[in-house]
């Protein structure tokens, strides 16, 4: 279902739906754009191309306690997650959450992710691409499902896609703000919008044929050259909307049998990630770690799930201090030359 809403009514709508839960949206403080809890639409920056960390941080926090234990057993820390309405997520990030769902909700259901996912409503918003956006190359620049509501900004109006019954429940909290009266002009405006968005991309990104190019270039010295530049700082994995690896540690209380079992974001760029008991390391060399990440994103995941594990958000481009990212790696492999 697609509805229509006046732009100026958005603020009142968000004010109303706050009854359901905390309102979160993209905020800006200098260079730092981040999803934060807000009280009103006016605190959000809906023009920012991307946040530093994708919305995965709300579904799967960087570090959290899974359960408390003592010598008798354990008690899960689930149940204390608040309801949240996450407003202003772009199509790429919704695609990212869908990949997270595949990882955490299907074969092995993760109770911590599942709870946060269940209690978070996703209210998408159309975006203004910048020079780092490459969702056009991963086919993720538009989104048809995976959200509760999606707002496409058509200057005077929003077209509002209702993507779930929970999204519909939000609409029903303030039905007078929505109209089903969609006319010829709206359709034309929407067609224009799609054309406009498609014309905005300028990144030199092309992932066609990447599974084959990776297969051909797997032992290429190009990857060694890139690894020589890699700082192994792990920022790429932290900011990637589809990176989901974690480590688990126990914290014990001093002089007590009580403690907590915590989980934190890990990175396959770290040497200890592939270290196993006995001291063997499966990917001791930096180049092997780079190969793992990039083949995972642009080759192996395609083989398994039919789409890349890259949603084209441009965060690795915006983050890596030495310019190693999906675009530079794909181009270097294709052209057999590391760009400047």
């Amino acid at each position, binding site marked *: 279902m697609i509805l229509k809403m006046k732009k100026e009514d958005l603020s009142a709508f968000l004010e109303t739906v706050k009854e359901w839960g905390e309102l979160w949206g993209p905020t800006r403080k200098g260079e730092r754009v981040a999803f934060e809890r807000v009280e009103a639409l006016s605190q959000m920056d809906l023009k920012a191309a991307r946040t530093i*960390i994708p919305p995965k941080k709300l579904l799967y926090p960087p570090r959290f306690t899974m359960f408390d234990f003592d010598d008798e057993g354990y008690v899960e820390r689930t149940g204390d997650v608040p309801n949240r309405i996450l407003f202003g997520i772009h199509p790429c990030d919704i695609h990212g959450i869908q990949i997270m769902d595949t990882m955490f909700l299907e074969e092995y259901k993760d109770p911590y992710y599942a709870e946060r996912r269940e209690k978070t409503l996703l209210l998408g918003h159309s975006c203004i691409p910048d020079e780092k956006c490459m969702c056009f190359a991963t086919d993720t620049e538009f989104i048809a499902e995976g959200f509760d509501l999606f707002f496409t900004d058509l200057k005077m109006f929003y077209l509002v896609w209702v993507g779930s019954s929970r999204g519909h429940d939000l609409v029903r909290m303030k039905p007078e703000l929505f109209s089903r009266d969609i006319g010829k002009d709206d359709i034309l405006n929407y067609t224009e919008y799609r054309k406009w968005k498609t014309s905005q991309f300028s990144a030199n990104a092309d992932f066609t044929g990447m599974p084959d190019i990776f297969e051909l270039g797997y032992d290429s010295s190009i990857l060694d050259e890139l690894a020589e530049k890699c*700082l192994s700082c792990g920022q790429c994995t932290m900011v990637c909307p589809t990176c989901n690896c974690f480590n688990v540690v*126990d914290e014990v209380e001093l002089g007590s049998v009580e403690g907590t079992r915590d989980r934190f974001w890990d990175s396959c760029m770290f040497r200890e990630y592939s270290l196993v008991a006995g001291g063997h390391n499966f990917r001791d060399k930096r180049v092997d770690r780079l190969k793992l990440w990039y083949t995972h994103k642009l080759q192996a995941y395609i083989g398994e799930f039919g789409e890349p594990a890259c949603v084209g958000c441009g965060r690795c481009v915006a983050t890596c201090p030495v310019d190693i990212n999906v675009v530079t790696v794909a181009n270097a492999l294709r052209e057999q030359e590391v760009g400047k």
Partner: protein
Amino acid sequence: MSSPKIGVYGFTGCAGDQLMILNCENQLVDLFGATEIRSFSMAKSDNHEGELDVAFVEGSISTEEQLEHLKDIRKRAKMLIAIGTCACWGGPQAMKLEEGGFEKRYKGVYGNAKITVSKAFEAQPVDAFVRVELKIPGCPIDKSEFLGAVSKLVAKRHPYLYRFPVCAECKWKENPCILWEGKFCAGPLTKAGCGAVCPSHNMPCVGCWGPTDDLNVGAEYNLLKEKGYGPDEIVQKMKKFGGAGVAKLVKEIKPTAKEKEANK
């Protein structure tokens, strides 16, 4: 569960790590309750130098007398843990390691003064002389890292400390990467554990936690050179807290492809 016998010792350093232990105010009673603190000169006068389960050693080693004392501690301790960046990597006093010229620098400071105390040598980390089971770096150490490790030891479990760079913690806090601003940030070379406290206040990391176990010194060097920093400044800043952890590595920095091209 019998409480482990513990000793806390300080050598060349500012004693800030021992102070940080005493600064664990809310947990001090638990700490003194869960362990038997046999020796801790900074905290108490009634000290007994016997067998220890764990010796915590702060500071680098820079005199013959310290070295003898360290060896004695090692003999008496089942486990020796270096605390603080000086004990782990040498600290700023070890920033000239691998450069030679210690005698000259020594003379420059002391001239021909007659030294009556123990003979001094170039400061080095504790593990340059004796076996070290665990390093808890920091300048000073972080309370929760220290207490976390002690709690695990008391519970007869392996302590876990982050081994990856502080960049991970920095990203968990969603800070923009300070290297993009052209600032000299030592984050990618520096072990996590501080919670990225400096970059979270828009101050670059100076590397005070010491190096990670997986350094790409050459990549950081080349990046900083591209940002306009001079080779000497880069190496000096890397060695300031990196000490023995980077002293050999900075000597192996290779010129970049661009530089090779320029030198042709």
